[in-house]
């Protein structure tokens, strides 16, 4: 993004303050479209006349600043940034006659439509909530037990009951919160017992994987369980001062060795 600095310089003091305010609020946005809409408002234009090119630049500047401030941006924002960078190039470069995809103008028009539609829904939601509401502005009858003569019992259920009942039946096999599938779980206690017997032989650095129990290496579920248990047991033994553990970098093999007494 070579023109970022140029773009930043062009921002007025007010715009810069607004952009900074936005960065502070980054978690307040409900996704990239919401952010774009807010940025669009700073153009102080009718959404129909908004400059998508300018908006794309504003967005990219925003994302760049967020990166500089080391703010965590959700993947959605970065995907949108990549798309807007693509859109920007489409809008600025002369169209390639061999390219069959939609033109930059079409893409920009669609984005403008999306923004306008989201804005319209926002306004509609506000108007809906501003309506008089039952139980707040107008009220139903306070009692409905005027008469009580014939008593007839009928049974009722809601769609929610029905769906939940079905979900319950269809998943009852998975829903066993207190029954673990013991045959596929290697517990930390088991691992600890196994490791205590083995650490005597670990004079040199050895990959923790080589300590997995036999028959637990191939099945992914069993391997996960055994690895977790063996790792936890190793930590426990480190705490007890019997082992040393190391890992050269993230995701590198974890190695252990008997601690020199």
């Amino acid at each position, binding site marked *: 993004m070579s023109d970022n600095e140029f773009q930043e310089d062009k921002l007025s003091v007010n715009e810069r303050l607004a952009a900074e305010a936005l960065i502070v609020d980054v978690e307040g946005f409900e996704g990239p479209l919401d952010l774009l809409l807010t940025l669009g408002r700073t153009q102080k234009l009718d959404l129909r006349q908004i400059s998508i090119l300018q908006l794309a630049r504003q967005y990219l500047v925003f994302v760049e600043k967020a990166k500089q401030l080391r703010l965590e941006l959700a993947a959605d924002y970065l995907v949108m940034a990549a798309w807007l960078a693509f859109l920007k190039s489409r809008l600025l470069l002369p169209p390639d006659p061999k390219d069959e995809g939609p033109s930059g103008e079409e893409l920009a028009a669609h984005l403008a439509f999306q923004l306008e539609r989201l804005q319209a829904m926002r306004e509609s939601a506000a108007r809906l909530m501003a309506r008089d509401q039952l139980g707040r502005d107008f*009220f*139903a*009858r*306070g*009692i*409905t*037990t*005027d*008469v*009580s*003569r*014939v*008593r*007839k*019992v*009928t*049974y*009722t*259920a*809601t*769609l*929610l*009951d*029905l*769906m*939940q*009942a*079905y*979900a*319950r*039946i*269809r*998943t*009852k096999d*998975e*829903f*066993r*919160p207190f029954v673990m*599938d013991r045959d*596929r*779980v290697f517990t930390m206690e088991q691992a600890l017992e196994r490791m205590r017997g083995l650490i005597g032989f670990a004079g040199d650095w050895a990959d923790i994987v080589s300590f997995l129990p036999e028959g637990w290496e191939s099945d992914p*579920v069993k391997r996960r*369980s055994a690895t977790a248990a063996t790792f936890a047991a190793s930590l426990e033994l480190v705490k007890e001062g019997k082992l040393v553990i190391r890992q050269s970098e993230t995701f590198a093999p974890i190695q252990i060795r008997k601690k020199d007494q």
Partner: protein
Amino acid sequence: MSDIPEEKEESLFDAPPMAEQERMVEAILFATAEPVTTAELEARMPHGCDAAEALVYLRKRYEGRGVHVVRVGDAWAMRTASDLGFLMQKETVETRKLSRAAIETLAIIAYHQPVTRAEIEEIRGVSVSRGTVDQLLELEWIRFGRRKMTPGRPVTFVVTPTFLDHFGLENARDLPGLKELRSAGLLENRPPLGVTVSDQDDEDDQAVEGQSELFED
């Protein structure tokens, strides 16, 4: 509070016209579960209102109507005219929630129709009591479908238009599948260790297959 500011207020803001006061009493009596005393009425109405006078007009307005303004002790309430009590019989219908066995049986029939009793029992993992089926038949939520072309030619159960009506469905195919139930948050439990994603998909397909048989004709 002293009397002086109140008097001042009274002169500044006149009480609403009597017709307006009558509307207010009407709305309060309608929306309040318990009978309301004139003191309570006046406490809720703007300053300077005369609830007793408004009640005289309101009572007169409802004379001979389907609803009356009646005195209950030293309080007031609105009640349906006693000669129309016969219309209220349906109001006293007591609705109870369906038992868990019944709702589960109903759900299986809705999702798997046409389905035999043996199939329901297999899915639920317990036997289906006669009373449960009878109750659903009586509610007219299920009916007998055509017999299955399997040994013994067992009867099947299907859901009825009354069922669709009660649950606000256009047809039983609109019932959401497991995946959709899960994404709507109606299914909180996650698959445990050992259940792979493809197993899950199979289950969804099954549910849909059960239905498709019925609706193809």
